[in-house]
């Protein structure tokens, strides 16, 4: 990185904000259509009934909750990279911290939609808010779903503020070079940042505090999400391992998403000098660890199911391996644990093609992990007479496609309109040489 100068950083990063070409707007248009498709499917579902999805009794939760957990999981590694690695002073996170934190905010937005989409009567969702009313009805704070409301809204607030705080100096840099209307917009957005010494002082303190505040959230939010399941009594859900298991899985999937986003970004914006292969390699190395953690969790679940002598638990896990959804288990084991081990080979983790390919594989595998847990648990639980299967419907696929489109749409808009690499932190890196 030694060849990077402050000017070169500004030039590279601000250069990405040049007026986009037609291809960009075509992509934005296509993604908008995708979002509209998802919104249309949701509107149809609200009008006709949640039955347009494939859920049933016993599998009353389907892709909506799978996608909820999937997107919350994606969010986590953004905070890991931007907050925890910041506290740990891991300098290699600086080039990707901005994009990762952005990914967090957008992924939480997508995730936050799904509990709404999932509800049978979304128009009554305000019952979950503790608002005073004449009937003295109150939400049930014993319910893990109430934990979720609090955890997700806290997470969205903190990560959005953290993201915005980090953006401030860069927004000012954009403002300084912008002209006309853009200048006005960025003047407002940069909140009067002048780069004065006391501003920097407050900024770096504040950023550190936010990092410290966000750090426990990495652990807590996905732990809370895992309790949606672990606090239920369903075999395959009701285990104490769920919180660390989910957190490890969340970081695993999030790191994969970081790679999925960074590799094209780096190529399109010519960020090779900033986002070096070393940075990506570090992400890949972390993924070896998270993959092994996830693998340990998978193994522990099976060990406990066997060791507990609980016939219901054991049948649930036996069926997981040989039943109708066994392919899901094999997807998750191969994609999340075995294939990431290829990163042990240096050539693999330094090859962009491998990195990109494996990141997609892990994303796929992590989606299936949620499928196996959420659908598999209740499909085969205590009462054998009530066992049943579930298959998503076109409407569910439409909403799922809509959520992916929404995520990528927001990210694509972000890339061309805000600095996708933190110039401030890059300059720190260059200056401090770490």
């Amino acid at each position, binding site marked *: 990185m030694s060849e990077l100068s402050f000017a070169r950083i500004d030039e590279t990063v601000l250069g990405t904000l040049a007026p986009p070409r037609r291809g960009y707007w075509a992509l934005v248009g296509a993604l908008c259509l995708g979002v509209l498709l998802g919104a249309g499917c949701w509107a149809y579902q609200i009008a006709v009934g949640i039955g347009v999805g494939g859920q049933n*009794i*016993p599998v009353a939760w389907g892709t909506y909750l799978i996608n909820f957990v999937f997107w919350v999981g994606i969010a986590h590694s953004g905070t890991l990279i931007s907050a925890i690695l910041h506290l740990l002073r891991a300098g290699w996170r600086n080039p990707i911290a901005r994009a990762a934190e952005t990914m967090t905010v957008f992924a939480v937005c997508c995730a936050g939609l799904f509990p709404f989409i999932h509800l*049978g*009567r979304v128009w009554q969702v305000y019952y979950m808010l503790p608002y005073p009313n004449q009937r003295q009805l109150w939400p049930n704070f014993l*319910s893990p779903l109430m934990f979720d409301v609090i955890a997700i809204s806290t997470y969205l607030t903190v990560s959005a503020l953290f993201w915005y705080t980090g953006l401030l100096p860069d927004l000012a840099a954009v403002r300084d070079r912008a002209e006309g209307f853009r200048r006005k917009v960025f003047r407002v957005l940069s909140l009067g940042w002048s780069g004065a010494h006391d501003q920097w002082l407050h900024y770096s303190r504040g950023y550190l505090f936010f990092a410290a505040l966000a750090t426990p959230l990495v652990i807590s939010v996905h732990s809370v999400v895992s309790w949606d399941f672990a606090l239920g009594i369903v075999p395959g859900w009701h285990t104490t391992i769920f919180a660390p298991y989910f957190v490890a899985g969340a970081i695993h999937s999030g790191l994969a998403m970081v790679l999925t986003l960074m590799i094209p970004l780096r190529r399109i914006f010519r960020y090779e000098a900033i986002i070096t292969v070393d940075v990506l390699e570090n992400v890949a190395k972390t993924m070896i660890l998270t993959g092994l953690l996830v693998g340990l969790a998978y193994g522990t679940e099976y060990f406990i199911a066997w060791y507990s002598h609980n016939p219901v638990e054991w049948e649930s896990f036996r069926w997981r391996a040989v039943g109708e959804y066994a392919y899901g288990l094999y997807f998750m084991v191969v994609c999340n644990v075995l294939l990431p081990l290829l990163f042990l080979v240096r050539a693999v983790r330094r090859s962009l093609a491998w990195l990109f390919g494996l990141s997609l594989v892990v994303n796929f595998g992590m989606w299936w992990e949620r499928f196996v847990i959420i659908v598999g648990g209740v499909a085969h*639980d205590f009462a054998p007479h009530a066992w049943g299967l579930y298959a998503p419907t076109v409407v569910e696929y439409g909403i799922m496609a809509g959520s992916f489109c929404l995520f990528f749409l927001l990210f694509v808009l972000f890339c061309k309109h805000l600095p996708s690499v933190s110039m401030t932190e890059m300059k720190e890196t260059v200056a401090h040489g770490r």
Partner: protein
Amino acid sequence: MNRRRFLQVAGLGSVAFAAACSPEAPQFLYGPPQATGDQVTGRPTWYASTCRECPAGCGLIAKNREGRVIKVEGNPLHPLNRGKLCLRGQAAVQALYHPDRLTTPLLKEEGRWVPLSRDRALELIAARVREAARRGEGRVRILSEVVGQSALALMRAALGNWNAAGPVIYEPYAYEALRAANREVFGVEGLVSYRLEEADLVLGFGAEFLETWLSPVEYAWKFKAMHAVRGEGKGAFLQVSPFLSLTGANADRWYACRPGAESWVALGLAGRLLGLGRGRHLPEGLRREIEQATAAVPFSRVEQVAGIPAARLEELARRLAAAERPLVLGAGMWQNDENGLRANLAANLLQRMLDPGLARVDAVNRHRVEIARPRAEVMGLFEDLAAGRAEVLILNQVNPLFHLPAAAGVREAMARPDAWVVSLGGFLDETAQAADLVFPLAHALESWDDYNGWDPLLSSLQPAAGKFTAAPNLGDFILAVGFPEGEKPAPDYRSFIAGRLYAEGRLKAAADWPRLLQQGGLFPPPGAPSGAPPANPPERLPEALRRALPLPPEGGPLLAAVPSIRLFDGRGANRPWLCEIPDPLTRVAWRTPVCLHPETARAHGLEEADLARLVTAAGALEAPVYPTETVVPGLAVFAVGQGHDAYGRYAEGRGANPWRLLSPRLEPLCGGPAEGLCRVGLERTGRRVLLARTDGSRTQLDRGLVRTATLAALRGGGPPRKAGLTLHDFPLTLPLPEGYDPRRDFYPPHDHAENRWGMVVDLDRCIGCAACVAACYAENNIAVVGEAAVARGREMAWLEIVRYHDERHRERVFFLPMLCQHCDNAPCESVCPVYAPHHSAEGLNNQIYNRCIGTRFCSQNCPYKVRRFNWFDWNWPDPLPLQLNPDVTVRSKGVMEKCSFCVQRIKEARTAARNRGRPIREGEVVPACVQTCPTEALVFGNLMDPDSRVRRLCDDPRAYQVLGYLNTKPAVIYLKKVTEEA
């Protein structure tokens, strides 16, 4: 006008204007604000009447709310059914409000139906009939369903006017073989009833007495009176048959025989019993004849023919011989072939040998269905029509075109240009479609009539609501067309019935008629001895048994077309509830599959839900396959009732009609259809259907949801087991403070007020008949979702009868009524973010529909999976909504629902008790399922009352809780089924 006045007028005017103009259309069903006569708005009025859904004739009481019949329940005074109804009876209201019910007469003109006025139709019929009667004798014929005495007398009188003999009473199941057996062995012309409740051992050769045979509700309570465990003993029920019907599934032991070999087993047993010294009381000649006839069927030969090991037959014979009060019942009602006839004959013979005075056979209280004429006579009528000897045929609520084989020529006879067919009845079924004029009649719940399920009994019918259509009842129709003006025996049918009863001396005082209507009939006082055994049984062995028994058909799969507990002979096929409620044995709703032994299915390359083609000499059809161990290899069991070409939206084009596969041959001796079993080709079509299965696993994987105990184990008691925390040693934890243990429970017990409601389900009494399920649908406005939705796991039944096969003996079947367990420690309650599942002060787990936002977490966390979700707004096509219970919310899309223990009935009882200033007493709250259970397997009550029945039953050594080890503390306590074999 001053300023003040102007403001007053303007203000009031605008308020009045705004209040009057609501954009909302009225969405409510209003009852009359001023109820008429004996009715009070908001309170039900009950009218006693008689169920006419099958020929059994159970008494019922119809609940009228604001002028509409909303539910029927058994008449507790009626000696036949003692307050109980089966699922078909519960569904009677759906015929009344059926969306496909005809409202006006229809005349066929050039192949199209033209509506015409009722008066015009009556004139037309009267004219045609007069004309035909003038042309000669027997030109007008009536083919009628089984009717009561008044209707029969009126039809006879009308036919007399028309120069013709009496009506031919038609039932597709006319019990020809049983009737022949009663005549030849008991010397009784008719269908005797059985004192099943007095027996200690019942041996059946296929008679479906718990589902369709003769009088199923009556035999269900009688069966449990003998079979339920009492103290340390219980009666035994043994079954010899090639497959298990629901009745067979309730047997203690199943002796699976080759199809068509029941007669061999029965006669073989007769021979062996003679050897064991039974039958000494028989006349010498008869005994010698039995000896001679049975010499050809030693157990070694029976083993060869029937496939039951001789040792098992010997054990069976010894049990029969040792029984104090045995009762032997014959073959299934569908078996009127040569084997069925001989099985019935031999069964009756066995009864005579084992029961010297025939004390358990009642020749006086005979079943009304005995007036149905044998198939041969019915075919004779159609031959007359085909030959032009008859020209006007009036069909009273019968559907022979559906039941009779295509080759019988019924359609051709009806289609003759000189034949004129009038079809009476509410629906355009196959036969009505082929008629020339369709004349709708009033439903039984709108009619005056009488009926007698047992011969000497009188059961009345009265309109339980105003007429829903203006259609007359059968009697008024006959009075209108059958008698010239001025010669009518009575001005209307009601006075005809009353007049007859007074004339016969059955009614005397003027108050007797209203009293009759009030109690629903003339019943002997309870406990009064009634009935008598057959007086002079013949002294000769029936001719058919003296000759060699016919060998069962060899090779090839055989087809048995059997009656269905849900659809009976097909008349139930258009009732949405009966379609939606799954068959108790297959647990498949909406479509009737063909049941094969798994080996047979495999041999033909068929798997569950594969569409198979069934081919016989008479025709072919396609049906999905259901492999089950309750059928012997080589037999295809197919329940009739579906495959309608007409009969409304729910029946039409659904499933297949196995009657189409039979030949029209008649059995010469009894005059019944000769083809009980017919050879059938099973072919793969390579296509599959989505079966609306309502079960996941057929076995319970040793999870102890259904538990059994042997009598020996119950007697022994055994050392008290140490309580632990696992599936098999978790103690009974009642949903009361005593069920809590600080070592196990984190939260303190609930403070319940006066009541903690609970239910006891005695699995030893449950026969799996699903009457409770139908009652629940009727009471609680449960939606019917259709085949596709059931197949996707979206059925709405609050109560289901779970069926499990034994893991090791797959042919053994257990039933488990599964409903909300109203847990004290409910997993659903804690996970709802908005408190929609709410624990009430009386222990109910209430579901607050208004509060529910549809997260469905409660269902996910419910280990019993009894919660049902409204995936859509379910609809009832008009006028079915008139049946809805106004005391129960109709749920809208997006909310969860489940069994409420009929909270509306609890509230009603509480209000009544509070008005009297006292607590609710035992027996004042009866949920719909408990009310109708024919075997009283369900008991409901207050667990906090130490003297209540439920509380005392909790101390039964058989008591356990389903999945109790999850520490949910369910308020539904199950009592283990008592079995002979472990």
